[in-house]
Each structure stands twice: as C-alpha cells, then as structure tokens.
C-alpha cells in the first residue's frame, strides 16, 4: 500500500493535467481555427469599438482606448477560460464511465479540475494570438503601475478558480439529467454577458449593475480587468479581491455539497 503523500497525489493529477493539455493539441485543426477565429474577432472588435466611439471622447467615464483594450483583453481571456467543451464529465456520465473514474485513487473533483487546467494551458496560444493582434492594431494598454499589475495577477488567479469551479458545477447537472445541451449553452452565453466578457459593467444600464455585481460571474473577468485598467485603489481594490476570494470559497463549498449528492445518486441508483 503506497503512502499517499502530497507528491504522489500531484503526480497522479499531473497525468490528468497532461491529458487535458494534449487533448487540445491532438485536435490541431481546432486549435488553428481557434487562433484564426480570435485574430479575426479581435480585429473586428477593435474596429467596432472605434467606430462606436466616433464623435465621443468619453462614455460613462471611459475613454475610447480603454474600451477598445478592454474588449480585446476580455476576448483573449475568455477564449482561454471557456473552451467549447469545458469538461468531459457529462459525456463520461452519459457513457457510464464515471464509475471507473470514481474508483481511481484521486477525488473526481481534483481529476476534473486538473484536466480543465490542462485544457486552459493548451489553449494559451489562442489567447496569445489574440493579444498579438490587439497589440499590432494598437488596441492594448498595459497597467498604469506595478502594484496594479501584481493585484491583477492575484485577481486573475481568483477569477480562473471561479470559472473552473462554476464550469464543473454546471457540468455536474449531468448527474441528474442527460439533456444538458440547452443548459450548457444558456450558461455559456449567459455567463459571457454577466462576467463582462462581452461588455464591461461600466456600460450596463443603471438598474442592471447592482444585480450583476451581486452575482459570482463578474468576479471572473470584469473584476481582474477593472484592476488592470487602474480603476480600483485602496479599500476598493482590497474589497474587490476579498469579494473574489469569498466567491471562490463559497463556490468550492457548494461544489463539495453538490458532489456529495451526486455520489449518493450514483451509488444508490447506478451511474
């Protein structure tokens, strides 16, 4: 009986991480078209925002260059965090392979999170291509100060954790119904809107802003980007990070609860 140390644990998970990473590279056409797609999208996005700003200096207190840069960066981040298939879990539940996964010596949650992390790393070239396009068109701005950049790194890590947990939570609906295609699409596009990946919260109508700020999605993309552009300082900055951390903790507890019920269901009713 091998001793389950932290390092053996990590080795096991590294295999799954690599599986996720490789599965991106195997479908090379998907990756190449993903890159082409983001290059086109970034280009057209820059044009759309510049045309929109034609004749305005500032809208909702935001200048043209910030709005353009926000749109490009948000598209790049989203292309990495939201691959078309963000978990193999629903398919494995549907095919009844989940029983095998549960017999492995690692918890299903860490298996799935490791695989999702691998997929995200595999998709880094897509995001990089989008970023280069934005830079070439002069549509990207760096953070104002070094502390802003450091705060952004922390905030982005929390945002990524948030996305990974919610993606897995939504995928777990597969334990209760096989027909999750519609729900997945609703989640994908709903979260794109609510996370600020399509439009920064600055431009949202006044009545919608408080609703969105109370949902976990804005902590995924809008929060880190608002730090990047230096719109948060002092207490506001710390509050934003605290709220992001709070969401990650709450979501993680929720994930454990849902997971426990799912296991119960599989054990009692079969996969």
């Amino acid at each position, binding site marked *: 009986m091998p001793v389950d140390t932290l390092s053996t644990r990590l080795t096991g998970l590294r295999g799954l991480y690599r599986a996720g990473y*490789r599965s991106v*590279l*195997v479908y*090379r056409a998907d*990756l*190449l078209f993903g890159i082409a797609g983001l290059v086109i999208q970034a280009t057209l996005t820059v044009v759309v925002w510049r045309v929109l700003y034609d004749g305005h200096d500032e809208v909702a207190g935001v200048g043209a260059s910030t709005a353009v840069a926000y749109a490009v960066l948000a598209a790049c981040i989203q292309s990495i965090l939201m691959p078309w298939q963000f978990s193999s879990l629903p398919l494995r539940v549907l095919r009844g392979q989940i029983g095998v996964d549960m017999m492995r010596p690692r918890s299903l949650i860490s298996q799935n999170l490791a695989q999702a992390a691998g997929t995200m790393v595999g998709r880094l070239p897509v995001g990089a291509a989008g970023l280069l396009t934005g830079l070439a068109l002069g549509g990207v701005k760096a953070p104002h100060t070094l502390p802003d950049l450091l705060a952004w790194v922390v905030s982005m890590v929390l945002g990524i954790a948030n996305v990974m947990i919610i993606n897995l939570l939504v995928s777990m609906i597969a334990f209760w119904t096989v027909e999750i295609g519609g729900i997945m699409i609703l989640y994908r596009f709903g979260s794109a809107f609510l996370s600020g990946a399509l439009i920064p919260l600055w431009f949202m109508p006044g009545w919608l802003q408080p609703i969105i700020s109370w949902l976990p999605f804005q902590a995924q993309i809008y929060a880190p980007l608002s730090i990047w552009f230096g719109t948060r300082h002092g207490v506001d900055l710390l509050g934003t990070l605290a709220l992001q951390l709070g969401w990650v903790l709450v979501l993680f507890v929720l994930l454990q609860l849902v997971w426990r019920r799912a296991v119960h269901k599989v054990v009692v009713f079969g996969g």
Partner: protein
Amino acid sequence: MPPIIEVSDLTKEFTRPDVRPGRFAGTRSLFTRARKVTTAVDGISFQIGEGELIGFLGPNGAGKSTTIKMLTGILVPTSGTVTVAGQVPWRDRRRNARSIGAVFGQRTQLWYDLPLRDSFEIIRDLYSMDPATYRTRLGEFTEILDLDEFIDTPVRSLSLGQRMRGDLVAAMLYAPPILYLDEPTVGLDVVAKGKIREFVAEINAGRRTTVILTTHDMDDVERLCRRVVIIDHGKILYEGDVEMLKAQYVTSRDIVVHCTDFDATTITSPFAQVVSADAFKATLRFDPERTAVPKVVHDLTSRYPITDLSVLEPDLEDVIRQLYTERTPNAR
C-alpha cells in the same frame, strides 16, 4: 449461372497523414503535412453468379470491408471496375440502392430511438412498397426470426442478437436481389446464430437472393457457403469450392478410437501413426490419399475390441489458418 457481380482489377488506395512518434509529436503534427499511401485492395478480380451464396473471407485488415464497401457503392475505387446487376454502384448510386440490401454487423441502419416497427415502416415508405406486400413479407420474416416479442421495443433497448435480426429484416424488406452481410453473427450466442443462418439459407434458397457473406466464423461458412473467396493483404489467396479447398490443404485425417477392455496405448496400425493415447482413447493420423478411410477402420476394428470409433471431419478453421500462415510468412 450468369454473373450478377463482376469485379475486375479492383484497387483502393488510402492516403493518411504520416504521424511520427517522438518528443513534441503533438506540437509537430500541427505543422507537418507528410502523407502515407496504403493499398487496401490490390487489383482483385472475381465474379459472383446469380443466386449464389458466397463466403468472403480473410484476416482482419485484409481488405474485406473495403472490397464490400466498393461493391455496395460506399467507396469509389481508385482503379478497376465493379458492376453489380449491370450498374456501377457508386455512379448509379440510387438505382443500385434499390437492388441491394446490406447488414454491417458493427453498425445498425435502424432508427436508434424509435421502436423497431417504426424503422420498418420508414423503410417501407422510402422504398415505396405497397402496403399488402409489406404486410405479407414482414409477417413471413417475423415468423422465421421470432420478432414478435420485441418489434415494439425501441432499438436502443434491444440486445445485440435482436438488433441484428431487425437489421436483417430491414435489409430484406424490399426484396433486393443481392444481400451483403458483413459479420452478421459476430458476438451472438448459439441460438441467435442459428436463427440468422436459417434466415439467410431461406432467402438464398427460397427467394433466389444472391448473398455475399463476410465472417470470421467458419461454422457460418460450412453451413451456408459452397464457394469462398479468400483475400489477404488486398490480394486473392483462394477462390473456389469449400470442399476443394479442404481437399487441397488437408493432407491428413484423424481417427479417434475408444476402448474399455484393454490399454489404448498399445494400439498400433500399419496405415496410421498414433498421435496421442491414454488408457481409454487413442488418436491416429493417416494420409487419405494413400490409404482409404474404410481400410484403416477395418484394420483397427478387426484387430482390437473397440467400443467406439470416429473419423474427424477436416476442420475449415485449421485449413484457413494454414492458408494464412503459409502465404504470409512474415506477417504478424
């Protein structure tokens, strides 16, 4: 028998990306465009007569399925010609579709979520069958294949054997003159195999349907086919009668002798060699070309008080195995 299927010099090549293993193979494959050409079927020719039931044999990857797919019009040949009932299958695809039925053991052509009966009705409509013919034929087939118990079950809930029977009916409903069967008995139990063989024999003998059967099950071949075409590495190894094949390859026959009153290890024969023996049973081998069976039997029975004796039939399975290994010394 006029030929209904004529194949001449048929060849199929496939081009596939050439993946080289090694470090960064995945990343490298993003950019490489190396291609490799493989020849699946290599200039084969044969004819099949109307009303024949022919076995189409060969090891995995021999080119069997590729050939069948060219005969059915699924694949376009790289070179050579195929005519089926006077048509070029891939060119006259629609007309060809009406004159052939096909069952591919691994895949179903039935509508997965619907009851079996619905699939039959869809096929009835697709092939514009008149209702009366449809009813009679479905009735007859139902009887031979015992469809009654599951005809109203959705296809996804059927067992493999049930599904295969459903597929057979779906392929024969519109009474095509030619039927292709690709591994119709693979993975089935003895009873289901029996049912399917009975059905195939019926439609061949009773309805004069030409049947092309690919299988790995030599029982299928022994029970159904008089003639076989055997291919390997895309080329024809043997084409002809099953009995002739056996005669050609079986150079020895075995006799098994049982006895209770004396020790079987003491048995000897001037015509045969003892292969194995214990206290109650001995197996002897002889060359049927040199010595006739009755002579060997008579010699043994006259000299020993034997309780039981049997002459083993030559086993087609062994013949085929011998054929493959002989012709392809460096394969596998």
